[in-house]
């Protein structure tokens, strides 16, 4: 089966611009998660979707970040406007249930100049 797919793999934008990251989960996985790792620090949770509903968005840093999962399939994470501190690697993961292991994509490396 295909794994979790993320694109782009790398994005370089200037401060103040908008960027949209996309995640395609494993087919049939209702649970979709976003995480990010900033400057070699620990991986931090951003939010959790169950189908199209936001189950937990406690990790979203501020209102410049908007995540959607229309139709309960793929998800997008938009950063608008991007700030320097948003640089990092953004990971998406999916799982069949919340107790099952999460399967991760290769991540999107976001660089804000």
């Amino acid at each position: 089966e295909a794994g979790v797919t993320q694109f782009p793999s790398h994005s370089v934008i200037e401060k103040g611009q908008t960027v949209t990251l996309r995640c395609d989960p494993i087919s049939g996985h209702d649970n979709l998660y976003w995480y990010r790792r900033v400057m070699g620090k620990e991986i931090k949770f951003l939010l959790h979707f169950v189908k199209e509903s936001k189950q937990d968005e406690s990790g979203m840093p501020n209102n410049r970040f908007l995540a959607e999962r229309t139709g309960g399939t793929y998800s997008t994470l938009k950063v608008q406007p991007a700030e320097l501190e948003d640089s990092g690697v953004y990971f998406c993961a999916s799982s069949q249930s919340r107790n099952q292991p999460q399967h991760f994509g290769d991540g999107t490396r976001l660089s804000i100049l």
Partner: protein
Amino acid sequence: AQSVAQPEDQVNVAEGNPLTVKCTYSVSGNPYLFWYVQYPNRGLQFLLKYITGDNLVKGSYGFEAEFNKSQTSFHLKKPSALVSDSALYFCAVRDGRSGNTGKLIFGQGTTLQVKP
């Protein structure tokens, strides 16, 4: 508050020797524990998990981990290290009482270097 600690930034071991990567955790409820491995420019790959049952959990690529409730630890082990095991390892925990969220809390990661 939930937290995970990986006290070693890097672990060095010779090929063929046993390896241990340490992890301790703090959660309010029953812990669901996971180990993941990350190779350069790739995502995290699931190695093994503990939710309930036998304290010794076996996973992929010959890795195993031992859950120790009294010490709140979940150390990753392998009897004989391979050069190809060199990678970044993350321990993660989910609080079993955390309601409907599947949120994982990660440690900072430990780089494992296996030398020939």
